[in-house]
């Protein structure tokens, strides 16, 4: 049986695919992977900077529209605003670190993850900084923003709290101290499920991490309750949460490396 050119393409593709996957798991192509990562990281960081600048610029546009008519002034105003935001974020992180006995490492956010259906960010710290899979990631004054899901030598990937695969135990600060599971994947909001039906949950109450996971301490801020759904035919009630922080605009985060 003769193989024509079209079939050859498919055979070669399959062969190449097998070689790449086998090469990765056997460690043959580590040097190519590291090289490609090294080439891409600066570009991702640059795009992240542009994206931040655009957001700050558009936010501050209304405020400065009457005063600043020149483009240069707008750009410098956006840059100052960006620096102010970063400064405030870092100050909050420092305050939290000083008041907390656990060991935290503060790293810069390089950019968004490349999978468009997942909510991940890439941070500038990895195995070298003792960052490991499962460690919690915070921003601001102790707000839980995600968890480490992958590490390499010098970068790590954080699964954000609003990702569809994210789940963590949550504790409501009501008189019962209700426990539940907080999950992401619902756009801007989060959901808290498996809250016992007989416990009273009110809108506006805060939700913090429950501390049931070995890596994550109790008491990291997650969000506040926006809606409570308590249906008569369901064994558990659930709640919609408003996250304590907009995870899109983070420029620096801290990773808990030792409790």
């Amino acid at each position, binding site marked *: 049986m003769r193989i024509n050119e079209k079939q050859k393409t498919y055979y070669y593709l399959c062969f190449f695919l097998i070689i790449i*996957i086998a090469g990765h798991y056997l460690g043959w192509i580590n040097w190519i992977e590291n090289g490609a990562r090294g080439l891409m990281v600066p570009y991702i960081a640059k795009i*992240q900077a542009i994206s931040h600048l*655009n957001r700050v610029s558009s936010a501050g546009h209304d405020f400065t529209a009457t005063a600043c008519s020149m483009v240069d002034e707008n750009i410098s105003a956006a840059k100052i605003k960006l620096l102010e935001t970063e400064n405030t974020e870092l100050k909050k992180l420092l305050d939290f670190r000083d008041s907390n006995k656990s060991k935290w490492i503060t790293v810069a956010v390089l950019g*968004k*993850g*490349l*999978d468009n259906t997942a909510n991940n960010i*890439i941070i500038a710290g990895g195995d070298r900084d003792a960052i490991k899979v499962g460690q919690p990631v915070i921003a601001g004054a102790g707000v839980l923003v995600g968890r480490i899901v992958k590490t390499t030598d010098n970068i790590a990937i954080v699964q954000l709290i609003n990702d569809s695969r994210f789940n963590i135990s949550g504790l409501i600060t009501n008189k019962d101290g209700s426990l539940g599971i907080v999950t992401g994947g619902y756009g801007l909001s989060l959901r808290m499920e498996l809250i016992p039906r007989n416990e009273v949950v009110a809108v506006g109450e805060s939700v913090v991490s429950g501390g049931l996971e070995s890596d994550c301490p109790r008491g990291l801020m997650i969000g506040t309750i926006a809606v409570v759904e308590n249906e008569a035919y369901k064994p558990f009630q659930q709640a919609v949460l408003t996250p304590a922080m907009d995870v899109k605009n983070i420029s620096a985060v801290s990773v808990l490396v030792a409790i």
Partner: protein
Amino acid sequence: MIFSGKIFRAALFMCLSAAILLAHIFLVSVAPYPYNSVNIIIASVLWLILIFGKQSAIWMVVPVGFCLELFSVVPFGLILTSLVLSLSIMGWLMLHFFTNRSLYIVVLSAFFAIILYRSIFISGLLLLDYWQIRDLSPNNGALVGIIYELIFTPILLLFVYALSGILVRRFRPEYINFHSRGNYGQITKSFWRF
């Protein structure tokens, strides 16, 4: 001459792959939600298959998919395998069954390619969960992102295909030898046929 032709093709291949990858990173980072759900990789490769009529355009996803794997949370190989398999199947269908190049087919091809890609991808994740390798199964919220991807990717492909069709018509493609250069002839003849 043959050697320089090969070098030119290799350079073109690398430039196109890099352009697709950079466009993907830019879109994911800068475009607002839900517009960042567009799958620019699938749209670009389908556009190349539609324009040039050659399944070798699928090679483009190998370097792009490899780079995505480096920053991905899912086990290495899943994105690459899903991309290559879905585009190989779709490419074969487009060259043997959906040979008409009307706008309906363009929209349908992008739609089916995304469905194939996500089906293979999610099946892979569920299999890994089943074998207890890693708990990565998405919840219902992930479906929303996929629905947006299904809506916006065909629209992007339609727009780019329509634009390229207009350009090809303006630059008088009758001077191009269609038999040796692929499907340009088909574009101009059946482009506006709904």
